[in-house]
């Protein structure tokens, strides 16, 4: 591991164990359910939109008026077409600050003709560069999730600072209808399932890895060739990485510290509990730092040190729980 990579990882992990540290103040969502192309897909998209919309409100706690849905069958002002997408994003820009988060989810179909990737809208489609133009200037942290076929190109096009870009596919060969949206929405809806580190919060990283692995397993269970591999880019290099490859690729830092659910309540007013909480956070930081050094330590030393910290953490956590 290079020195730079190690430093970067430590920063990430340190932040990750401080819930709310990187959480934004306001959370907005734009759901765009594009042209379905058939009754079957229309039905799926409708179900996904409905499920995602309700999940964002509850349990994730997005304010109802912060969720905008543009869809195929909607009325003129809400139909998923180019004009409404650009109008909506333009209208959002002045509202969003650097402390906010904007989640954009594209549902439907995408294409890639060798030069341009498009998301299929009602009427003229929008190319990835047009999405970029519409999104540029947004001050908020952007979580852009293109769940469609041929979505990989969006990663490079939209990549940037303070942006997490997720695509359901990682190459032009992956041009078939995707199942990624089903599992991504499932991860948001059932946080307990996707909350990999069991800290009671759902990060974008956890939702992404859950969906990625669930997609893989669904293909394995069907015994069919995997036709989609989702990727993520959050370090602004424009190169998407799979969930399994991310540690080596440098992505995941931002996604691990970006949460889609509401921030937890403030630390206890009880001074004793607050002190314990402080110590808990400190140990969690120590644990993450230790884990980051694992590959460089003798196994026995790591295990001994880890166990000591784990026991101390467990005791303090138990005390906090009983005090509450």
């Amino acid at each position, binding site marked *: 591991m290079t020195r730079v990579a190690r430093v970067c990882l430590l920063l990430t992990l340190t932040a990750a*164990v401080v819930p709310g540290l990187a959480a934004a103040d306001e959370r907005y969502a734009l759901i765009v359910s594009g042209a379905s192309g058939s009754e079957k897909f229309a039905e799926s998209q409708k179900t996904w939109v409905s499920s995602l919309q309700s999940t964002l409100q509850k349990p994730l706690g997005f304010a109802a008026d912060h969720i905008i849905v543009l869809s195929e069958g909607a009325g003129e002002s809400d139909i998923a077409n180019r004009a409404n997408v650009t109008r909506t994003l333009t209208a959002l820009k002045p509202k969003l600050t650097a402390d906010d988060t904007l989640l954009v989810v594209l549902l439907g179909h995408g294409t890639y003709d060798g030069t341009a990737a498009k998301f299929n809208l009602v009427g003229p489609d929008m190319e990835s560069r047009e999405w970029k133009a519409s999104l540029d200037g947004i001050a908020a942290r952007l979580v852009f999730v293109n769940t469609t076929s041929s979505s990989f190109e969006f990663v490079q096009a939209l990549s940037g600072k303070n942006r997490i870009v997720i695509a359901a596919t990682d190459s032009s060969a992956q041009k078939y209808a995707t199942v990624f949206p089903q599992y991504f929405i499932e991860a948001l809806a059932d946080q307990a399932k996707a909350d990999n580190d*069991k800290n009671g919060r759902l990060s974008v990283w956890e939702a992404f890895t859950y969906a990625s692995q669930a997609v893989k397993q669904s293909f394995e*269970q*069907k*015994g*069919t060739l995997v036709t989609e591999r989702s990727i993520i880019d959050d370090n602004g290099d424009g190169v998407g990485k799979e969930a399994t490859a991310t540690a080596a690729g440098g992505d995941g830092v931002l996604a691990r510290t970006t949460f889609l659910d509401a921030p937890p309540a403030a630390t206890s007013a009880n001074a004793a509990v607050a002190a314990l909480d402080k110590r808990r956070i400190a140990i969690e930081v120590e644990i993450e730092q230790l884990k980051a050094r694992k590959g460089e330590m003798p196994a026995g030393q790591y295990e001994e040190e880890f*166990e000591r910290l*784990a*026991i101390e953490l467990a005791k303090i956590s*138990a005390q906090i729980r009983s005090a509450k």
Partner: protein
Amino acid sequence: MKSGFWRGALIRLVAVALAIGTVSDGRTSRIAHAQGVSDPIVVKARAAINRGEYAEAEALLKPLAAKAPEGEAALELGLFYELLGRVDESRSLLRRITDIQVGPRTSPAEYARLGRAARSLGEFQLANDAYRLATEKAPTDPALHTGWGELFLHVHNNPEAAKSFQDALAADAKWIPALVGMARALVDVNPPGAEKAIEQALSLDPNAVEAYLLKAQLQLDKSDREAAKASIAKAKSINPASLEALAWSGAVAYIEGRQADLQQEAAAALKINPRFSGAYRVPAELAAANYRFEEAVVMSRKALEIDPNDVRTLSALGVQLLRTGDEAEARQVLEKSFAIDKFDQTTFNLLTMLDSLEKFEVVTEGNLVFKSHASEMPVMREYVGPLAQQALDIFAKKYDFVPKGPILIEMFPKHDDFAVRTVGLPGMIGALGACFGRVVTLDSPKARPPGDFNWAPTLWHELAHVITLQLSKQRVPRWLTEGISTYEEKLGSPAWGREGELSFVAAYGQGEHMTLRELNAAFQDPEKISLAYYEASILTEHIVEKYGMGALRKLLMSYGEGLEGEAALKAGLGVDIDTLQADFDTLLNAKYGTIVKALRPPKELEPGKGNPESVAAAFPDSFQAQVAYGEFLRKAGRIDEAFKVLERAAEMVPMATGARSPRSVMAQMAIERKDSARAISELEKLMQYENTDLDAVRQLLKQYEITKAPPAKLLAAYERIAQLDPFDAANHTALGRMKLQAGDARTAVREFRAAIAAGTLDPAGAHSDLAEGYLAIGDKVLARRAALAAIEVAPGYPRAQDLLLKVVGQ
């Protein structure tokens, strides 16, 4: 066009001479015409060689060869010396021929001689070029195409060889050497085609020694040893000094335990050619073909004592060693073989497969050695070893026999690797597993889509072969070993081994089943083999029920004592085959007579004829008429009526499975109308005969969950899924939690370990489950490790923290 000659250049010349060499006296004038040979002395010498009159042949050829060292007689003499093992003399003569200067005026016959000589000298690309040029100059000469085909055979390219022989036969449909060559090209892949070619050759030339020997091989493949002996005897009567005939005669003697006869034949052959390793190689190959691999290894080693560089023996020994489980020596031998003959695709495949196999993980438990791909071992080790041990324990008790170990089980995630490990070539699409006595190979669950097959009954089946092969000293006939294995499969679990039943009953109804005398040969017939499996299992079941396990064991041992066929049957069961046949016929009729009647399709069901309702009314006892009517009613939305009709159909043929079976259709109808109770009932009945339908089990589980079915039912469904799709992590977790709740902590631990190994989506939860399981069985060390693993994934996870504190006592 032969432009695809795989490793490089195209060369083509051959073998006018070869053509002569493979035809006996009656055809010499024809050959002479075809190749433009005019010297009657060469023709006469050839005829003498074909009769085994070697001294006379040499006397005829020698003067001519001296006079024309690049001519026909020189080639013949060179090949003749090669036959006798006089290598230096042979090479010296053949080298002169390959060294000729070629140019625009070189004749096809000269190219042919060059090609044939080059082939013997191992210069295959030169030979190929020579044949190409020869056939370009004389495209309708069957002898040239035949020679080229022989070259392809020599370098193991049978498909190209067959094309060349086809070209020869297109030029002359009665070209005997091409017919014989075609038979050789087809003998392994298309025995009926080979047989046809041989019969044609023999009808044209009743003295074709090679054709008789090929015929004998096919007869041996069909276990018709007496006929094979007659064919070999015929070959020997034509040419008593034929090395191949002597080798085959010795091989049959060896198989029959006539050691002295083997030695006599080998001595006779070695007297003619002291370097003729075939004297033991052929017996080795026949022993291996009869599953007697350890004996084959011994014979092959004897062959190598005669000629340590005999590539055919080396490659065969490599395969034999693989089948005895000695992979280390197999690799050495195969590498030596490949260094000599880089054209042998089988050896190449095996070496490549061994390279992959070396990366497999190995688990040894007692007498069992289990090898699995690293990506699968963590999951499969939880199941394969215990199931194999369970099977062997049951069989050991039942057959009163402890098999010799170590027993090697290899499981391949790529079917082609399994095929190569088993037969040296990819393919074998229908095969799932194989057993060689102490070596079992099989597809892993990942080799095929989940629900395509069930690895567990496959392993059970193959391990039953371990018993029957070893108990009979590898001499059990195919019908009995497969019959017992399938029978044991059916006893292993209620739904195992029944997939062939409906096809068998349908065939039985059409009179297409086999008599007992035909049964063994049916295993060589791709059209009949699946029926043969099931029929043999019913016969085994009948033997056990009527004569008892003791008799079955005695029958196996009687084969081991050297008895065969009906004599073994009489010794083992105390009954003659006709009596057994009569009893078996009665049994089949009693067991399946009614179903057979139900399965007869009314003609009115043919497309365009009748309507389902009237046909069903006219044929109330016809399964197909009722199924068709049921489907009709379903489409018409008359669901209650559809249930009644399909229920009746299902009762007629209870073993019907698959998506269109009555039980399956009724289950779907019940699910559609949200009638979980009915859906469960149908799916449960379906599962009694179906052991691979993963979707159906998942549907059943879902219905159980909806109805909050008793834990025992849920457990059974989880266990079935775990067997059919061992890489379903969530299922392992669910099963483990139920087991833990039920107090079976050991099984729970196994399932939790499997969940982690299969790549659970919730690793912290899975490690915590495992910690709980270990705590329940009192293993605090492992519980502590598991709790720490959970905390490593999720430091703030209260459940894991509490478990850790519990384990450390704080």
